């Protein structure tokens, strides 16, 4: 049975209410979409089967994202609560949490609760302002629990400070789920006048669950970083499979373009080691192929790596666990060092950009500190300085650009992708807002790969709603399905989320909106490549 309050009225102290489900979302609260979706009616989020309800925690909002097994008895519950509190305490340790100690402390201690963050959050807005998704709700809960536990007078003064939150298993389980109702897009932090980062606090919360309790979504941990470190890629691609994929790519390039290209692998001393999100190999091999065509025609010295971990640039640790992040990034650094390349170029993967270049800037040290660069800047040099020749008429259809949060807001790479699109796409138009003020695709921080139970329902209706509305607005003048349109998303995770959004909203059939990366458009425009590299076939 649900709590009696409406989703818009939940209070922080309700988190420990002993009810089966704290909040019941109503799709009628979700904001309407622009034309031609004015009359679009969302189906309710799929209810969980009795079996699933019995097996996994779902008491926050009836959504299962993390799949936390239900404790068997009260003793187990108590142990988990204790572990949660000890993990929370470790965030305040310089040794255990040096990676984020200062930002964490500053954001925990200095929020003035002005609520400016709320208006920046697409999830809060798209949920119809459900309180549990307000950026302040989660952060305030963390602060109240931490203050009560840590302050010598925390318990005594709880009436004054509002710290009287009961830390029960219900509280902890709901906090765990809450940690996965934010895409870490950091739009809230960007709008905070104080500079407090409630998005970062969400990530710190995820760390407590993973690094202390061993709880994380399977897609990120067991099937994510663990598989990456042991098999070689979170996709499950091992070295043997990689070789097959590269062989297929060579054949496909020849079929599509007539070009015979041998993909270089483990070429010692190459100028460039390019690292792709291996998800591209399976879902969008044309991205891998387009990079190969571009680099070969530009005459670059480049290579791929077949080393364990080295052929997959993802680092899901960035989403939930500093230890796993460190392991993956140090492995990436070691591979680049061993190959003796001059630089590592990040393919079209937003979080890999941030993991390698920004956050990773303080992980890659000494001889392993090989320079890292974005493929977007490299492509800008090739296209805008006419090192490859393009014919923009080949891309004469409406194109809009999705800005991956990790590339723009967290790294400041804003103009190169725009300069390229202005050069090769005569009908390029911006979304609004864009650049560093963009909205997340709704699949950030690992959500795009969290595909089980009813989490995708939530992702389509709520976390991705704002982005879909932005896409429709960008094409408002040409929304007619007789006109093919292209959303350029230079990031694998964003591309996956946009693919799922377009599928859920039946957008290919209704509006002929297609999605893809940036390099595919570049190659489609290159005069040295047979016309028609880009295929209007939704997949």
């Amino acid at each position: 049975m649900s709590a009696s309050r409406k989703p818009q009225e939940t209070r922080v102290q309700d988190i420990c209410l002993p009810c089966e489900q704290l909040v019941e979302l109503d799709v009628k609260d979700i904001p309407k979409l622009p034309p031609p979706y004015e009359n679009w009616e969302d189906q309710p989020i799929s209810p969980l089967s009795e079996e699933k309800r019995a097996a996994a925690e779902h008491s926050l909002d009836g959504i299962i994202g993390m799949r936390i097994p239900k404790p068997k008895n009260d003793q187990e519950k108590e142990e988990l609560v204790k572990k949660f509190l000890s993990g929370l305490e470790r965030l305040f340790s310089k040794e255990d949490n040096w990676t984020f100690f200062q930002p964490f402390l500053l954001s925990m201690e200095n929020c003035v609760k002005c609520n400016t963050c709320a208006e920046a959050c697409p999830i809060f807005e798209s949920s119809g302002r459900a309180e549990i998704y307000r950026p302040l709700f989660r952060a305030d809960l963390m602060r109240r629990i931490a203050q009560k536990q840590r302050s010598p007078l925390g318990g005594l003064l709880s009436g004054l400070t509002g710290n009287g939150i009961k830390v029960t298993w219900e509280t902890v389980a709901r906090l765990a789920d809450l940690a996965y109702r934010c895409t870490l897009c950091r739009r809230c932090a960007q709008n905070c006048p104080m500079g407090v980062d409630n998005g970062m606090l969400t990530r710190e919360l995820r760390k407590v669950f993973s690094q202390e309790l061993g709880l994380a979504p399977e897609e990120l941990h067991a099937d994510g970083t663990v598989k990456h470190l042991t098999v070689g890629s979170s996709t499950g691609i091992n070295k043997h499979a990689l070789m097959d994929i590269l062989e297929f790519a060579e054949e496909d390039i020849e079929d599509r373009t007539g070009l015979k290209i041998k993909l270089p692998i483990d070429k010692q001393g190459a100028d460039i080691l390019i690292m792709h999100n291996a998800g591209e190999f399976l879902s969008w091999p044309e991205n891998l192929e387009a990079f190969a065509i571009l680099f070969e025609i530009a005459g670059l010295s480049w290579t791929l790596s077949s080393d364990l971990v080295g052929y997959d640039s993802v680092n899901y640790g960035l989403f939930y666990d500093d230890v796993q992040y460190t392991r993956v990034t140090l492995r990436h650094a070691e591979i680049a060092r061993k190959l003796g390349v001059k630089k590592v170029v990040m393919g079209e993967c937003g979080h890999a950009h941030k993991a390698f270049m920004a956050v990773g800037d303080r992980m890659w040290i000494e001889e392993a500190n090989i320079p890292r660069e974005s493929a977007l800047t490299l492509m800008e040099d090739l296209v805008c300085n006419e090192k490859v020749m393009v014919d923009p008429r080949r891309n004469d259809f409406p194109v809009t650009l999705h800005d991956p949060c990790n590339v723009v807001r967290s790294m400041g790479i804003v103009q190169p992708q725009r300069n390229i699109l202005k050069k090769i796409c005569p009908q390029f138009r911006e979304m609004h807002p864009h650049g560093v003020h963009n909205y997340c695709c709704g699949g950030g921080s690992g959500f795009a790969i969290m595909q089980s139970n009813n989490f995708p329902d939530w992702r389509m209706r709520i976390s991705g709603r704002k982005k879909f509305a932005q896409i429709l607005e960008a094409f408002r003048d040409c929304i007619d399905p007789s006109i093919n349109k292209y959303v350029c998303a230079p990031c694998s995770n964003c591309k996956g989320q946009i693919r799922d959004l377009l599928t859920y909203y039946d957008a290919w059939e209704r509006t002929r909106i297609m999605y893809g990366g940036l390099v595919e458009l570049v190659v489609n425009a290159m005069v040295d490549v047979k016309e028609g590299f880009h295929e209007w076939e939704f997949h």
Partner: protein
Amino acid sequence: MLVVQILSYVCVALFLTMVIAKVIKYATTPIHLRWELYPVAHEKGRSGYGGSIFEELDWWTKPREVDRLNEYKEMFLEIAFLKGVFKHNPRLWVFSFPFHFGLYLIIVWLGLAFILSILFAAGVAFSTGFGKFVQVIVAVLGYSGLILTTLGALGLLFRRIANADIRRYSAPIEYINLVFILVVTGVALAVHLAVDPWLHGPIAYLASLVTFSKAEAFPAALQVEFVLGSLLLAYIPLTRMAHFIAKYFLYHDVRWSDDPNPRGGKIEGKLKQAFGYPMQWQGPHIQTGKSWAEVGTSFEEVKEEKK
């Protein structure tokens, strides 16, 4: 009066001690991973749209151009006019700006009073032409500050009560803080209008504190003002009202902190130290007690997760 003076000394000492302790706490934290957020104000030629040096081909070979002037300009706009609140939360700004600006004027007023207290201790008097001019300035600053702060605090209190979104997240202490400030500024306004219209009292009182001399016998109402003011000073660092300390670090050490880590540089030295820290995390995939460097390079062992 001596009791009031002793109280003021204690409160000033507590304020300074707690502020310095907070500064030391934030300034001595270990290096952390980069977590900047664009726009970064000192990115020369790029801060307007939020760009960074990462937009340059082979960026590590290019000179890093830092635009300190723009950084100072942004800091000034943020501190003096609360630019961020104005841009992202204009309804709040209507009350927050007069509140903060009023506080700045009070600080300038007290700073001026502090200087005057030294001058008067040295024999300068209000009866001179310069003295009269300063008297007007002091009164304008003092009254403007007190009035703006009072109005701002009233507005913020009203907003906290009237706006359901904010009320839902407000603890009693947040109301108490605003009421405390209202009481202090309200009492000060009433006292001066009634018994000290030219605001001479605070100057004379500060002079007695600065010179460690016995204060004159002030009217009881003024003594109440001095007591309340002193208590507020000592109370501020205990609360979130001391967010002005953290804001510097939030902007300079996190949001705008984009210093690159070249090989063999200072940052690298700090990172090597941090990699040596032992970790006590208990997760099944972590070798508890080993250093970050050891755990971070033991990817093979991840297969053998703890039971």
